[in-house]
């Protein structure tokens, strides 16, 4: 159920993100989702990639600080209110979302949203119970 997200620490300097994507390109690693959180001084790159353990190794070898976090890939209807339905279920169950972002590609008429949730196991239970589809790692890495 849980997807491994790779997070990388980047200083706000020209070309730093391009250096990171270059490493992934050279190692033939595909990015299926990416988001950048930025502050005045630094940024955090969060990514879902194919072959995440290879990705971890090459990024680390290149000298970046990197870690992995469990996130959920949740399918929502690609129509008005689709995301709201999921957020409302979480909110009604007192589960808060640290951040979310969406996939670059989508498999169908549905949209795929990634959620970072501290109470991840509670969230899985609640979403399953409400008939919301959470994609498995196999499904995601195949995308």
């Amino acid at each position: 159920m849980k997807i491994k997200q790779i997070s990388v620490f980047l200083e706000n300097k020209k070309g730093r993100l391009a250096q990171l994507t270059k490493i992934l390109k050279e190692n033939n690693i595909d990015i299926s989702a990416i988001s950048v959180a930025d502050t005045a001084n630094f940024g955090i790159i969060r990514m879902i990639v194919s072959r995440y353990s290879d990705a971890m190794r090459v990024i680390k070898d290149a000298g970046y600080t990197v870690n992995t976090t469990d996130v959920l890939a949740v399918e929502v209807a690609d129509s008005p209110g689709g995301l709201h339905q999921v957020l409302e279920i979480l909110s009604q169950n007192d589960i808060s979302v640290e951040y979310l972002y969406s996939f670059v590609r989508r498999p169908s008429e549905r949209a795929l949203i990634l959620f970072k949730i501290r109470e991840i196991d509670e969230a899985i239970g609640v979403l399953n119970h409400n008939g919301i589809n959470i994609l498995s790692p196999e499904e995601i890495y195949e995308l």
Partner: protein
Amino acid sequence: MNYWNKYCECMEREELKKLQSQRLIEAVERVYYNVPYYRNLMQERGLMPEDIKGIEDLNKLPFTTKDDLRENYPYGFFAVPLSEIVRIHASSGTTGKPTVVGYTRRDIAIWSELMARTLTCGGATKDSVIQVAYGYGLFTGGLGVHYGAERLGASVIPISGGNTKRQIMLMKDFGTTVLACTPSYALYIAETMAEMNLHKDDFKLKYGILGAEPWTEGLRQEIEEKLGIVAIDIYGLSEIIGPGVASECLYKTGLHINEDHFIPEIIDPVTGEVLPEGSEGELVFTTITKEGIPVIRYRTRDISSLNYEPCPCGRTHVRMQKVIGRTDDMLIIRGVNVFPSQIESILIDIGETEPHYLLVIDRVGNMDNLEVWVEVSEKLFSDEVRRLEELNRRIAYEIQSTLGLSVRVKLVEPKTIERSQGKAVRVVDKRR
């Protein structure tokens, strides 16, 4: 030329040597019988107090370092019971613990006398209005100058540091004639005056008694020009007494050391050997009148030289050259002693096992600014912005509460900070 104590300050060298010898003998007896640390050390060397017959025997005695003081924290070096101590000051140490010094009533009286000499040497008189903008508190600067100025009979404005616009308003309204503060703060005051559209002619300032940090001749000229004053360099350290160890006279050619209370030596910082007259090396002091915490051959880590040539001011006391550097990695930022190792222990407390950090010091708008770069390791890293910002704030807060100095923390990527072959580069000092 004005003197506070002409008899002592202009004493013939032969007579001065006799006085120093007699006082040294007494000081050695005091530490031998009252400070177990020194007694043990002397016994290890097979030295008895009577083996010290005068200043020619000074080099038989062991050195004292800041680490020795710290290892005996807080009162291990006190030579009198706490009941005889009337004041305690402290300065930051190389790690978490400060260096503690205690003064007896007589120590405070001598300190006041030495500061009265210092102020007189720098142009102040009993008619002066002295604004003390050194920090008051555990730091010796504020209270040291304060007691000396009262002893002198001047009018003292005990304003302490900070609140610059108010300083300037009072300086103008109260007719301050002597400003006592760090050189960088004096320059900051000058800049702020300009911002307030005030001119030096709006003030009665004549002299600046400036110290507690190293400064250049260039900075002196700038301060003198902008404030319309004569700027005098003073030197001291809390381990010896605080300010009042040495000060320039109006000829500004070296700082007269109060040799009737402190015996200076210049040594080779590596071998510990005493160097010939005029050589540059590490400055070492022995206190010969202090009761609370007498120190024998204290290694200041400051690099200077001694000049025994007569001074046109008439004072016979030896002049030390303006301090030109340090033998260790201590930095002085806005008058505060900072050791890179202090930052390191804070980062270790926060959970970083092998911290990589860099202190970047710059003078922005004439104020020293400290920026601490910290490499974000996997241990510190989080995928949440909030966590990293918390980390940033926490490091800044811990440093600020340990050093009493505000800093800007910058989180940087691994390997941003240059690794050198030998000793790590921990400091980039961009100040003039």
